[in-house]
């Protein structure tokens, strides 16, 4: 007779007592949740004991459950060490989920509109608890994912794992690599800062070079949503970033992983006879079961990798945010993201269509069809000297081209502009002026002529002589006219004179000396040059710094000064045969609270 009019838990309690009945029902729930393992089975697994009942309950979650149905129930023990996988495939999946989770957090605070995107970034950084933390994680994870996916491909190539029967697995892997690259690249635009706008402008301009022209023009228009990247372009990149490309990525991850399981993870080449594939035939004594060994190992690696990421973003690294994007101002030294530097380097070799589109196209197409071209059966290193050499050449080329993509290579800007805008006070990066502590920016006018003195004692005299010299040759008047006229600097002109850097500003003196060094280094192009740092108080907590370079113009051809027989540069002369004196002046402002030196 039931307690209630129908059979229930209470009958069990009546029959077995509360404790036993409760335990049984909990056990039952656990077994349902795990699709086959009860509390005792789990305890045994975690203790490293053999299962106490047959059939082996540790296999049923794979057979009956959803979550583990795609995971193999056991692995070959040559596969579970660091070699041959280096965990790179696993890490790629880890970062896919890592990026999804951190990305969703950021989506909550983001609007894909040029009006709001940048202020959203500021809000995330200044007003959202854990906002900077999540943004840093997302950005660092993206860079790490690009690196890891690439290394995963390299590893697969080196161990010959793309060979029969895994050709299609490799093919889907190349699609995953492309998706990863495009995901990372499309994410660049979203903060809508200068870095975003110009990195993406460089990238998207390659779409324009796709031949024939009608295709290139329209692909470019579709991608950017107009001739210039604006509201439409941002929205499109956003949708690609959060919707289209992730969809492709997840679909191909599924295909890729399914293929990995179907064929089994490939064994180290030396373990198999040539032409055989024994990954699916794992002898009993070499099996490592997923439950508990692989699973505990993976959970441990999730914890450790996450910890490493968190330590990095908490103590060592923050995602950069430059100033608001400005299509009118191109910061000097703009580059593509580092993983596209090789394309930027190739572009410097010549034709945009060939080096920017066809060349990368050939590379990626070569990668896709590689397993169908290289059909030799042996995966052993000794038998694959040719392909391994090709791999090494391609890798070296990528490194060399990436170096060539740096602004230091092959881009010639006039020396004065380079010193002012790259070395001293770049618009976006720090340079050497901004990190000078605010209290060492002592109001006054200082000149690199100070360092022409033979020793420290003579500096004051040298500067005094310099003052007289420029007053005589008219450079002082010209300098003052430039500063106060177009520069709108307020100066007491009558009393304006250069002085030596005070002794309590060692950092300022050091920077001025570096400035002197830059001028010396470029003395062929900047003949008889002197530089100056003029510091004035603009507001109570705001100083204005005018950086001056004055030099005699020399004859320049193709970006390099023309040298005479003695290796000296030749002065350019005006109509009357006099040297032409040039001035380049840049001013920046530094606020007491800007804390550039803390970076």
């Amino acid at each position, binding site marked *: 007779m039931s307690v209630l009019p129908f059979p229930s838990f209470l009958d069990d309690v009546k029959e077995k007592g509360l404790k036993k009945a409760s335990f049984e029902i909990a056990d039952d729930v656990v077994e349902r949740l795990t699709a086959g393992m009860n509390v005792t089975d789990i305890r045994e697994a975690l203790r490293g004991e053999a299962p106490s009942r047959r059939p082996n309950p540790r296999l049923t979650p794979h057979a009956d459950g959803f979550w583990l149905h795609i995971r193999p129930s056991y692995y070959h023990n040559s596969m579970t060490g660091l070699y041959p996988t280096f965990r790179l495939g696993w890490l790629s999946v880890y970062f896919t989920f890592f990026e999804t989770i951190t990305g969703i957090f950021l989506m909550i605070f983001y609007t894909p509109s040029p009006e709001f995107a940048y202020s959203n970034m500021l809000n995330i950084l200044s007003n959202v608890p854990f906002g900077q933390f999540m943004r840093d994680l997302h950005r660092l994870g993206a860079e790490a994912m690009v690196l890891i996916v690439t290394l995963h491909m390299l590893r697969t190539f080196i161990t010959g794992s793309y060979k029969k029967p895994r050709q299609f697995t490799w093919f889907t892997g190349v699609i995953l690599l492309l998706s990863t690259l495009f995901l990372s690249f499309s994410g660049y635009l979203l903060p809508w800062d200068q870095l975003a706008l110009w990195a993406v402008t460089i990238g998207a301009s390659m779409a324009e070079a796709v031949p024939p022209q009608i295709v290139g023009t329209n692909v470019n228009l579709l991608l950017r949503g107009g001739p210039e990247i604006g509201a439409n372009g941002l929205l499109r990149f956003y949708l690609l970033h959060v919707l289209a490309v992730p969809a492709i990525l997840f679909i191909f991850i599924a295909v890729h992983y399914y293929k990995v399981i179907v064929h089994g993870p490939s064994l180290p080449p030396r373990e198999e006879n040539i032409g055989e594939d024994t990954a699916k035939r794992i002898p009993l004594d070499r099996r490592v079961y997923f439950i*508990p060994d692989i699973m505990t190992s993976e959970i441990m690696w999730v914890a450790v990798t996450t910890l490493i990421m968190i330590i990095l973003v908490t103590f060592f690294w923050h995602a950069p945010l430059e100033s608001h994007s400005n299509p009118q101002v191109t910061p000097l030294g703009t580059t593509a993201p580092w993983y596209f530097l090789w394309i930027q380097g190739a572009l410097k070799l010549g034709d945009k269509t060939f080096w920017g589109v066809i060349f990368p196209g050939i590379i990626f197409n070569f990668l896709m069809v590689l397993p169908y071209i290289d059909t030799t059966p042996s995966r052993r290193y000794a038998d694959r000297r040719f392909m391994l050499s090709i791999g090494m050449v391609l890798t070296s080329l990528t490194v060399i081209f990436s170096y060539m993509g740096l602004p230091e290579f092959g881009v010639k800007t006039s020396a004065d502009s380079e010193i002012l805008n790259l070395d001293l006070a770049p618009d976006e990066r720090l340079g050497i002026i901004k990190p000078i502590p605010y209290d060492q920016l002592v109001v006054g006018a200082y000149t690199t002529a100070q360092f022409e003195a033979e020793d420290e004692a003579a500096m004051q005299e040298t500067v005094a002589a310099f003052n007289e010299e420029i007053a005589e040759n008219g450079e002082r008047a010209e300098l003052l*006219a430039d500063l106060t*006229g177009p520069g709108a600097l307020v100066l007491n002109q009558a009393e304006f004179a250069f002085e030596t850097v005070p002794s309590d500003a060692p950092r300022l003196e050091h920077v001025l000396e570096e400035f002197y060094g830059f001028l010396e280094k470029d003395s062929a192009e900047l003949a008889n040059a002197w530089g100056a740092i003029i510091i004035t108080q603009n507001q109570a907590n705001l100083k204005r710094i005018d950086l001056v370079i004055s030099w005699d113009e020399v004859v320049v051809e193709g970006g390099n000064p023309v040298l005479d027989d003695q290796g000296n540069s030749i002065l350019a002369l005006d109509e009357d045969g006099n040297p032409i004196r040039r001035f380049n002046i840049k001013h920046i402002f530094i*606020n007491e609270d*800007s804390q550039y030196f803390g970076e």
Partner: protein
Amino acid sequence: MLKRIFGPGRALVESIENRILVGIAAFMATIVILGWVAINEPGRMQAFDRQFNARSTEKGAALFVSACATCHGPQGHGILGRAPALNNPQLFGHDYFPELTAQVTALETERGAIAAELADTVNPVSDARREEIESRLEAIDAEIEDLAQQMRDQLPPAVLAVGYDPLNFDRLEQTDWGGGLENFIISTITSGRPVSNAYWPQPMPAWGQVSGGSLRPDQIRDLARYIMNWDREWTLDDLTAVRQFAVAPCNQQALPGATGACEDLLAGSAADGGAAQAPALTAGDIAGTDVDAVLAALETVEGDAAAGQNTYQAQGCTGCHTTGVGPDLAGTYTRVENERLADPALAGYTAEQYLVESIINPSAFVAPGFADGVMPASFGTVLTVQDIANLVAYLETQTE
């Protein structure tokens, strides 16, 4: 080799107990770091705000130099007759005489109350009361005027000469602006002052992209932060440094067609006893913009043509006056003598008077064939009387 490096690590994670331990330790460490981050978040966000605002003023300062300084002056002190000061205690509503102001406010409150009584048509006041009120109103006006005079007496005369009214010490009150000062500034930069050419030679343009200008909203906020950064403990010196105070929009009905009222107001602010109250200038004083005062001072100051040439170059005069943008330097004096002084508009001028006026108030007379507003009106605020004397001496050597 590899075994030696990875061996110990591998041993650590080889047994299941160790894996569980390492995993738990890593999770715990993660939680601890998250806690550490959480504790520091409020401080970090505050620091970010401070740093961001600081960098924003830097960007604003750069924009100010390129977009605003030509009219509002390089230090934001304004330029007489062109645009008002922003580095200005009046803009920030600084009250130099809080006690006197409190009395004025009390009187104004009283005036408002009895004036309302007088204006009440439903319950008209008795004739006796009317007389009482009228006399009281007069008395109040006199008292306010008396208080205002007390304030003026404590102010440097030069400040009053350029139009400072101690009763109108707050720009926002003057314009009946309902919001805060930063919003006032943002709104003014964004939308401009469409009718301000009624009282300035050039209207304040609309700078915001939303209003057809060139600046993005974030740039306008940078500018506003820079201007707000002028706020400080104001002293009388700050008031003296102001070259031009804001002009209250004058007679609404006169705008925008009839500008007479506004011109009177401008002329009034410049002429109102400027010469009468300002002390006589000496050689080292900044010349200012009062031609008569400078001319008076020049009677005792000797000019040096060589020094004048230096000043001429240092001030960048050659940038226009040798390149065709302005009248050519060569032959200036000959042309002044022969052509300008013959112009009926300059009847009664001396050559010196014309030159001085042209330097410190270039828009007063524009040489035919050249545009107005090109020559900066700010020379009176940077040159000393001695500089002017030197310049005049130099220009007198420019004969053909």
